[in-house]
């Protein structure tokens, strides 16, 4: 049910994009208005969400420590897994964000029985997650060739690396295959691993279908249903130079692709996809374990009612005296 709903939602969106591309009168809306709205929603939405998180303080220093603490000088500290300095925290966060350190932990299993294959599923999650996110990034970067004149070297290099196999014409991009495979895997494990299926929400299936739809429409456009690519770039450049134009005859598949991307961008700030910002703000990861070295301040720390020593002594003075325990007031 949750899955079907998400599936049909994406199909419906693709059809909307199709309609938008077909009708000349709608092309301006789907080619200019919606993309602008999407980018604005995305940027403002992300900033709003991050600022909203930042409105709540981090009252306590609660890193999850995953290695030896800073202690006696002769005990080797695990400076990244249990950082006590900001350098360490930076390294920890970099490993987390760039290499998914925590997910990788799943693989460290020994003394297993049976063939190796039988336990690999956890490592697969890490691998698929990594492949998916990195492909996504590479794809984003190489799309920048549509948005820049005199394309910067980095983008060119990224693109040539991505197509280094030199298979097919136009050159086949590795990341196209990788992202489709990774999304498929991430979807299948939601369907086939019962405990993951049990916890999955519509909000888990929807982005998978949406990204799958974006990737498929992109692949179709590049390799099969070719579009007027110079027109695409004209349109893209028009958007980023704030002189929007709608060149003729681009091809309807492009509008589907563009619309699905617009939906994704608008969807990000309001969904679990905000983990892209949240991962940087997680207090169990981005804090140094130095709370015994530097006092962490809780902005809403307030005085509490305590049972003072004097009250305590009043309660027990006689007993203390007869037991030979020193007291303040004789």
């Amino acid at each position, binding site marked *: 049910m949750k899955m079907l709903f998400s599936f049909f939602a994406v199909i419906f969106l693709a059809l909307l994009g199709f309609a938008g591309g077909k009708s000349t009168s709608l092309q301006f809306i789907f080619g200019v208005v919606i993309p602008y709205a999407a980018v604005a929603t995305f940027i403002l939405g992300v*900033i709003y969400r991050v600022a909203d998180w930042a409105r709540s303080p981090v009252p306590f220093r609660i890193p999850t420590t995953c290695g030896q603490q800073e202690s006696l000088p002769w005990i080797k500290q695990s400076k990244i897994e249990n950082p006590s300095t900001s350098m360490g925290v930076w390294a920890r966060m970099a490993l987390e964000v760039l290499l998914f350190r925590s997910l990788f932990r799943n693989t460290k299993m020994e003394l297993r029985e049976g063939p190796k294959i039988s336990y690999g599923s956890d490592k697969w999650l890490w691998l698929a997650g990594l492949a998916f996110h990195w492909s996504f990034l590479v794809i984003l970067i190489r799309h920048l*060739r549509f*948005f*820049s004149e005199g394309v910067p070297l980095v983008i060119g290099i990224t693109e040539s690396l991505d197509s280094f196999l030199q298979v097919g*014409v*136009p050159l086949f991009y590795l990341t196209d295959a990788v992202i489709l495979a990774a999304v498929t895997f991430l979807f299948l494990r939601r369907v086939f691993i019962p405990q993951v299926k049990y916890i999955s929400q519509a909000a888990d299936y929807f982005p998978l279908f949406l990204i799958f739809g974006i990737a498929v429409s992109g692949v179709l456009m590049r390799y099969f249903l070719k579009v007027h*690519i110079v027109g695409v770039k004209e349109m893209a450049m028009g958007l980023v*130079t704030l002189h929007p134009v709608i060149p003729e005859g681009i091809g309807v598949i492009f509008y589907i692709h563009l619309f699905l991307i617009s939906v994704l961008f608008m969807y990000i700030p309001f969904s679990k996809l905000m983990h892209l910002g949240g991962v940087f703000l997680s207090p169990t990861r981005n804090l140094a374990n130095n709370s015994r070295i530097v006092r962490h301040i809780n*902005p809403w720390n307030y005085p509490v009612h305590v049972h003072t020593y004097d009250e305590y002594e009043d309660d027990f003075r006689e007993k203390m005296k007869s037991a030979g325990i020193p007291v303040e007031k004789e």
Partner: protein
Amino acid sequence: MKIYDGGKIFVGIIIFLAFVLFPFYSNTGKVMAKPDPKIDTPEIQKLAVKKCVEPKDFMRSEHMQMLNDWRDSVVRENIRTYKNSMGQSFNMSLQNTCMKCHSNKKEFCDQCHNYMAVKPYCWDCHIAPKENKT
């Protein structure tokens, strides 16, 4: 509204903006010249009917595929004649067919290829035509 760790949050947001707004600010002030492939070479002028081997729309989106097919059929299968959709025959040759008419690589091929940042590997093997400076 109080923002905690404002400094760090601010830097983070700036970095985020630097990434997502890159296409916008990197292009400010630039006036985009649309590519304008020229087909007024002397060779084309001489043609009675100014037509390529296939219709313009097809050539625009499929020329890379066609050139690739040509190369394969010439180099691997030794078939040198191309029959187009109208039944006309052409010699499959980049240098002798395509570039004969489009002798102005800079003003024809490079116009779009540079615009799109596409580097075709035709010229890895073929020698680019020497053009007269215009």
